[in-house]
């Protein structure tokens, strides 16, 4: 069979290698912008098309198994790579991973488009972006915890350099954040999460009878309940830090806002999803008893901790977003709020809730990338991210305003857009488990509406700020990623089945294992 997953994962890496090699041979000069861009675009397009193919095949298959498993011959633990470690280069996707691979494919492509106008150090920039993308794809495509961790680090470490070198600093009365500070914070938090994940993974490795990192083997392993109870919070929190879990979320606004546009899109779009994906695919799938205990089933106050943190995420993130002036901070805090919905969905342990959470991961990835792209465009044109400095821009940039409102309305859960389906399913799934928490979480809807509309009003509506008489609308290549992202937001909003049919067959057995509700 054609190794499509390897192609998806390794295409960005090959692109990065090509840029490095050609630069090393002085074929691509320092001033050459077109070549690194073209290489990056080509490799991400390959991944994008591949990921669409994977998702489509999976949609047609519609089962709960693993597809595109490779290398098939090594799956029998024969002559595997790194056999002594119990680790192997083992790829394969189930429904949840397939949707995440699709998300990464979309975002990898649009991130390159959004980087089109990067001026300085193009070669280094695209090399790092492509390496990170390889890591992202790898995380979603691998079936081996060792490689999972490897890819995880591959995705997170380039972020440090990208934020630190191409990022922007901020200094105003609300906050002073240098890009170096933001980069360091981001890296440290990701590494803290990574360390917890590593401990959890090693715990599973040494606790398993097979001494293996292979997730398919570990899933069959019946870990003792005690061990699961110890390992689960480590893994869940480790991934949670990456998903902006309160109170370990403060890297997120600083990091996202300091990052260059394309990187903000990637960070919010897929890096947070690596956390959410790890929560469900590693922590919950491999340690179901621990998950059931910690997610409400334990009967002690400890088993409510994660749920309350999810609630705090939802409300607190939204409240913080209401008080921000910097457009990127607003979006970043809204990410915190929305990732809380993901956690709430997972915590519901039921089919509806987990499906909703997976949907929310996808939908939030696309929507927030759209919003960050717009924030980047606005900044590029007006040279400020402070929403109070704008005003009336809709008159000069109608297309941008339309896209902003599309993204904003999707964020606040307008039906017809993907955000609505996700939130609705999560609430439906979570209510039977945690009534008051869910009711409280629903109030987040009105908070979201408030901050999104506030931002929209301050930037686009009202009389035109005279400073911006000559400001121009988006044009040319800038539109490509806006159209792409909006297309997916509306597509999955109108036809949610396209995505739910991917995740549902994988979620149903998981919910059974977790003892959650089946509809």
């Amino acid at each position: 069979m054609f190794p499509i997953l390897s192609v998806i994962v390794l295409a960005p890496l090959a692109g990065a290698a090509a840029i490095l090699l050609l630069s090393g041979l002085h074929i691509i000069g320092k001033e050459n912008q077109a070549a690194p861009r073209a290489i990056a675009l080509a490799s991400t397009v390959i991944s994008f098309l591949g990921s669409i193919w994977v998702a489509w095949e999976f949609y047609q298959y519609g089962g709960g198994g693993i597809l595109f498993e490779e290398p098939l011959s090594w799956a029998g633990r024969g002559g595997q790579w790194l056999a002594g470690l119990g680790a192997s280069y083992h790829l394969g996707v189930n429904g949840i991973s397939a949707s995440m691979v699709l998300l990464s494919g979309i975002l990898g492509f649009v991130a390159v488009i959004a980087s089109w106008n990067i001026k300085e150090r193009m070669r280094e920039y695209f090399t790092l972006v492509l390496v990170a993308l390889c890591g992202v794809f790898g995380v979603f495509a691998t079936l081996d915890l060792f490689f999972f961790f490897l890819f995880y680090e591959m995705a997170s470490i380039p972020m440090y350099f990208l934020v630190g070198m191409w990022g922007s600093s901020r200094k105003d009365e609300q906050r002073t954040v240098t890009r170096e500070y933001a980069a360091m914070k981001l890296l440290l938090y990701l590494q803290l999460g990574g360390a917890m994940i590593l401990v959890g993974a090693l715990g599973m490795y040494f606790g398993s009878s097979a001494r293996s990192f292979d997730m398919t083997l570990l899933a069959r392993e019946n870990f003792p309940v005690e061990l699961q109870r110890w390992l689960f919070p480590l893994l869940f929190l480790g991934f949670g830090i990456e998903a902006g879990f309160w109170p370990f979320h403060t890297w997120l606004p600083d990091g996202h806002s300091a990052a260059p546009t394309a990187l903000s899109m990637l960070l919010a779009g897929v890096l947070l999803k690596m956390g959410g994906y790890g929560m469900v695919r590693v922590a919950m799938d491999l340690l179901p008893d621990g998950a059931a205990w910690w997610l409400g089933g334990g009967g002690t106050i400890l088993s409510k901790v994660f749920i309350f943190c999810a609630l705090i995420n939802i409300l607190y993130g939204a409240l913080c977003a209401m008080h921000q002036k910097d457009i990127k901070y607003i979006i970043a805090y809204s990410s915190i709020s929305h990732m809380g919905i993901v956690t709430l969905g997972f915590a519901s342990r039921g089919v509806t809730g987990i499906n909703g959470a997976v949907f929310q991961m996808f939908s939030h990835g696309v929507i927030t990338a759209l919003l960050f792209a717009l924030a980047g465009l606005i900044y590029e044109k007006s040279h400020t991210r402070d929403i109070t400095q704008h005003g009336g821009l809709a008159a000069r940039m109608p297309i941008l305003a339309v896209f902003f409102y599309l993204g904003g309305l999707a964020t606040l859960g307008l039906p017809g857009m993907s955000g609505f389906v996700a939130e609705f399913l999560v609430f439906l799934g979570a209510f039977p488990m945690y009534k008051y928490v869910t009711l409280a979480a629903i109030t987040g809807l009105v908070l979201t509406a408030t901050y999104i509309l506030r931002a929209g009003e301050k930037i686009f509506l009202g009389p035109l700020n005279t400073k911006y008489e000559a400001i121009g609308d988006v044009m040319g290549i800038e539109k490509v990623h806006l159209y792409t992202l909006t297309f997916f937001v509306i597509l999955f909003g109108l036809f949610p089945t396209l995505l739910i049919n991917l995740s549902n067959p994988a979620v149903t057995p998981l919910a059974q294992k977790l003892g959650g509700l089946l509809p």
Partner: protein
Amino acid sequence: MNCSGSRPRARRLRGEPRSNGHVQAMPDRGWLVPLLPFLSFLVIVFGTYRQARLSGYVSVAGIALSAVCSLALLGKGLLGGVASPAPLTWIQMGGFELQIGILLDPLSLMMISVVSVVASLIQIYSLGYMHDHEYSRFYSYMSLFAFSMLGLVVSANFAQIFIFWELVGLCSFLLIGFYYQKHSAARAAKKAFVVTRFGDLGFVMGIVSLTWLGMKAGVGVSDALSFENLAQFLTQIPADYKQWIPWVALLIFCGAMGKSAQFPLHVWLPDAMEGPTPVSALIHAATMVAAGVYLVARTYPIFHFDPWVLGIVAVVGAITALVAATLALVQTDIKRILAYSTCSQLGYMMLSLGAFGYGAGVFHLMTHAFFKALLFLGSGSVIHALHTNDIWKMGGLYPKMKDTSITFLIGTLALTGFPLLAGFWSKDEILTNLLHTDAPNHMILFGLALLVAVMTSFYMFRLWYLVFSPVRQAPSGTHESGKVMTLPLWILAVFSIVIGFVGTPWANFFGHFIHYGEGGHEAGFSLTVGLLSLAVFATGWYLAKTFYRSTELPYAKILSIPGIRETVALVSTCLTDRFWGIVVRGIVINRIARAAAWIDTNVIDLAVNVVGWTVKGTGFVLRFFQTGKVQTYATYMLAAILIIFFWFFR
């Protein structure tokens, strides 16, 4: 949803027989009704956006065709032969299913007819009212609205109605903020959206808890949310959980309160008048704001389950009717008067629904749609001519704008309950029902309703005398609006006159067509009520006449004494905006959100930074041990080895 297009095909493929065994020449293409405006929306957005005029015609054509379809369906429905098409599955996972369906029953047939007819007339009117360069944007929004509203009306379940519920909210947002370069419009749009969202929270909670009840009853999500099976589903809920049903009903009512601008969520409606006048007529008078009332009527079984919920509905309705009517008395903006009047009339409908007057409430919903649209369009015609909203700057328009004035008078008479006009019948039915119902405290409610009727009559005639009465002098250069605007006015005026006759107490076609439960609860004719209502109408009219029908306006001077009007205004703001201003801006945004943001920077981030600083400080101390001299390090090493050595071999 454009996926609704394949519904009849799916049905045909499955070869299901049509229900009722009626032989029908044409399949019931109920989905055409919302779909046609959606098509025109798509055509405008993706096709004719650059050709303004064409966009207008596309939109009008779409909604007019939709109106034709609706009327055809209504006709078929009156003959008793309409079947709802089979629903389409929208989301499915295992046993979980959400459906999109078209529910065609008398209530929805009536509503689609009213909505599409009024919307067509208003869109035609807008051809004259709006400026050319605004056409494309305006008509795309209007088409989207028509689609959403019609979709809302034909929704077959809670999830679907919520989808369209939010979409009409979006359209309302877009259209209120149509003149987005005005601060006030932008802010009003935001306010409308957020305030209705407040109510929607309850709606979502209600839907979510309804599915939970469904789970307890062993009923699938799609059945638990379906309107058709609602009454039956409620009986299936286990006894232990029945106590939750009224709470669910209250939560759903929250949604209705937000959308129908019921006290205390009514504050957005007057501000919504920032939108173009046709929008106010269509969305904020005739159709969307009535959606809340429609929702209560649509989900009546759940309200009817426990009478105390209906009692609350009635009380909220009565308070809204009273408060809004009071506020309408002192407004100076022509559209705000009408807005408060709308609010008040919506309260009236709620009051009626809450007092078991299902048929009367829905009947008033229908008649109100026509005459309030008429009134708004009339005011639009005036504003179009005078470019002001202030009634004190108008006056004596009758000789200059005959068509507008006469139709406006017809609308006024219909609203105030002049005998034989539309409002008379519906209002009488409400009052009669209130008098004879066995709802708790119905006499108090009856008294309140009469009081509101007096006030309505007063503020409407005040408006008419101040704006149209030839006693005052018209501003110079005033002229009548064009035919494209006056024609819809006349059509609506005709409707306002005749539409009431479908529901006279003696031959209540309406009541037979649309009723809850067994029917036959419609109150008959009551001479007492008839006379009372005539007296009420006359009182209001007389008071208004004495106050405002003269050039000197002697009594009006009382109101214009410095201080009096301010006092009234102050009281009214305390009742309305001020409260929400304090809650939302004062507490939520300025206190809680600021506190959260402060905590984020100064507590959590501080803790993070403290960790960082600790590491840094440790490093600062330790760096003195790092001299860079190899021999120092070797000495440390030696010392360490010795210590370890002695530690182990002591």
